[in-house]
């Protein structure tokens, strides 16, 4: 995948003119104590430019590629992609998971590079390893092998989720698929709980909770117990709980399942605003149309492996994502062939 500088779907990640490539967030060179911006770092499109201007670090002190952990043999595309696109929000390296002693791994040397500010779709069939990969990437499932690196603000170094979980997890907001919620709490209590667990100030939590409840259109339900919510409302309140600490990376596993179209549109625009201001969203889905409309980057997984990744245009290569996906994954012609008997009597 070459650098997608002028791709129509990714206007916001064009590097600032004259930047000459981003500065790496190389853990080996960046100082821990570097002062951080008090102002929102993501405010401007092309976020890297203002950052360079105030950097306390000598611009030339870092290597000119962003992902120091990218190994060429496993992710040959990474280096090229990085040279054109700002820093990395999430880097998954050789992530592998064996369940028990069974032969085939649920995730097999998965390599993903999610650029900062991107809206990243992870597509695959049922059982392709999407949820396993995302669980490992978010610290919920210990990988058999491999590493996960999470970036933070534009000047934070990449952190290994499994080596420094406390700091790394603070940068992430996660919506796990199919997880129970603390559903004896009211919606408002659940979101508040999620904020307080992250050590946020009580007033800030209260204010953001109300904002999120309005954004999710749950004003009427906020005082009721989550166990009485419909499936879509539950997804929305879980999403709110995942966003309250304003993470720099949102990992959403099947976020739109059973969410009604209006709410889905609202959430989509909310997520787009979030990426426009520099946040990164990773969604998994098997709804191709949705991913194609929503995301600017995409990775295709099947049988625990990543078959393709990059910008939407690169992966689709002029086809629709659905057709492209089928051409990657195959197996379409057998569909329904064994079901000759399936018709109303």
């Amino acid at each position, binding site marked *: 995948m070459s650098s997608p500088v002028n791709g129509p779907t990714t206007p916001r990640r064009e590097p600032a003119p004259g930047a000459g490539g981003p500065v790496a967030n190389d853990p080996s060179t960046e100082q821990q104590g570097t002062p951080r911006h008090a102002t929102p770092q993501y405010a401007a499109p092309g976020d890297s430019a203002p950052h360079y201007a105030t950097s306390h670090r000598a611009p030339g002190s870092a290597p000119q590629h962003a992902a120091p952990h990218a190994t060429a043999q496993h992710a040959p595309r990474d280096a090229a992609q990085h040279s054109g696109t700002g820093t990395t929000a999430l880097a998954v390296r050789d992530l592998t998971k064996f369940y028990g002693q069974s032969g085939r791994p649920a995730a097999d040397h998965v390599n993903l590079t999610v650029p900062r500010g991107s809206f990243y779709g992870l597509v695959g069939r049922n059982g392709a390893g999407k949820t396993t990969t995302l669980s490992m990437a978010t610290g919920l499932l210990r990988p058999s092998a491999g590493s996960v690196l999470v970036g933070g603000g534009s000047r934070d170094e990449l952190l290994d989720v499994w080596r420094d979980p406390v700091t790394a997890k603070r940068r992430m907001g996660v919506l796990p698929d199919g*997880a129970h919620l603390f559903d004896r709490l009211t919606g408002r209590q659940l979101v508040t709980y*999620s904020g307080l*667990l992250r050590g946020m100030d009580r007033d800030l939590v209260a204010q953001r909770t109300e904002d999120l409840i309005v954004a999710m259109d749950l004003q009427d339900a906020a005082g009721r117990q989550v166990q009485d919510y419909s499936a879509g409302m539950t997804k929305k309140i879980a999403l709110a709980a995942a966003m309250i600490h304003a993470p720099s990376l949102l990992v959403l596993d099947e976020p739109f399942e059973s969410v009604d179209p209006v709410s889905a549109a609202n959430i989509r625009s909310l997520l787009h605003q979030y990426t426009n201001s520099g946040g990164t969203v990773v969604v998994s889905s098997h709804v191709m149309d949705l991913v194609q409309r929503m995301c600017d980057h995409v990775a295709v997984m099947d049988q625990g492996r990543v078959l393709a990744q990059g910008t939407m245009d690169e992966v689709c290569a002029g086809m629709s994502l659905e057709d492209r996906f089928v051409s990657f994954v195959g197996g379409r012609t057998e569909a329904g062939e064994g079901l000759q*008997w399936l018709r109303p009597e």
Partner: protein
Amino acid sequence: MAASRVNDPHESPASRHLDTAPGDVPGQDVAPDAAVPASVRPSHGSGEPVTRNIGPFEEARRLAGLKWRILINTLTRSTWILVGTILGGLYALFIVGMALTALFALGSEALETVIIASVLVGSLLLMGWWLVPLVSSKADSTLDPSRLALFPLSTTGLVAGQVVGAVIGIPGVLTVIALLGWLFSWRGSTTALVAAIPCAIIGALLAFVGSRCVTALGANFAKGRRTNEIISMVVLVLVVLLGPLISLFATGLGQVWQMLPTWAGVLAWTPLGAIWAVPGDVASGHWLAALARIAISLVTLVVLVVATRAGLRRALGDAAGGAARATSRAQEGVGLFDRFPANQWGAVAARCLTYWRKDPRYSASLLMIPAIGAAFWFIAGDSGFSLWALPLFVSLLMAYAISADVSYDNTAFSLHVLAPVSGRADRLGRVVAMLIVAVPLVLLSIVLWLVGVQRWDALPAMVGVCAGILLGGAGVVSVVSARYTYPTPPPGASPMKTPQGFTILNLVVQFVIMGLMALLALPAGILLIVYLVTGAALWGWLALVVGIVEGLVLLWIGVRMGGKWLDARGPELLQEVAAYR
């Protein structure tokens, strides 16, 4: 090719499969897109219906087969579950072996003795089958009607399937064995032996149908918001009934022995005992009594079947009821979250305390406390010995209660892993919430003890021992539950539901943990005993200090150690509890 298949719906399925041999790509001419196979396009031909009513007997057979399949799959899922089940089975087999020996020996006794023993033991058996699903929350959920609601099953078939299914499993098999042994206790009279055979069958039916009836009715209750109150009422009534019984035992075994014939005489005319007395009536020629008792049993059986059917029908019609209901009242603000410190452990404590109030799985464990209090009060008698144990026991149970916390959270625990909550804050928050609930209860039990034994002088020592057990026990559980979890009903499920994979092995571990908790409170306990023996006030006050200090130290160590373990193994713990359904 595809078109010909569509036009020939009477073709057998086998030949259709042959048609779709490899290489034969159907639909090339008719349907360019293979994702829309010819068969699912609207066809107005009328084929033979492939579904048909299979009749209640076949339904029952298949349901029982399902139960068998599930049993086997549960057992083979994990070695430990298998081992635990085998151990539990061996233990039960041992007991049944003893019972069989006793029943066989009974055969050579006088007819009167056989009748009395048969009625008493039989009533106990039925009582066990009827009450165990209700009280010990060990209801069998494998053939849960709400899971079968989508299948076109007749209620009769469902009831029959559940009854046959009840035989499959350790309790059912053991009951059948025990009933076979019961037959031999009538070997003194051939007519009685012959009469015992149908009686055994009716007795078994009473046991199995009654058990299913209680479960079906219980499932309906469990869905209601007032479940807790109802269960608590039942438990309390039982305990109150049990109290006089136990105090009778306390007054002397000899007197109880004298009472047994009277009890048997009464029980033999109730649904519980009637059927077990019939062979004796037959042997002694009391045909009218035998007929009356059979009538009592049969009427009971019919009532149970009708009640089970009604319960099942309601459960089937209400299978999705839980999901669609929105009955909780809206609550302003964030409740307890405003009353705790705005940090991790404060949030965890507020959340846990909310759960203690709102989650029936927690409140169900709280219900045991008044029941135990009532039981100990009744047992106490004149010496009041059991009252001494009451506060200690309440402390132990309350401290142990948080061992199920993470299992109760189930996958909701992922929020703690994701936040990430530091292990120490997680442990501390749960302990604080438990203490807020437990301290008033322990104090109440101490008041009960004071009222009962009137020993104001021993108060400091007693408080010390209770503090030692409660605080130290909370420390122990904080460590252990970070490492070891056991299956519990998942969130939203009825507290009466038996989680899959809970075996006697889990029970043994629970007892070991409780034993450890009691052992660690020994220093204060010994001081209490020393005080009671010597009567020197110094020992009492020493027990108070030792109990509180040791408890606090253990709690501190427990929260730290448990927190460290939790930090290291959070994801593994999450995967473990996520498997509990």
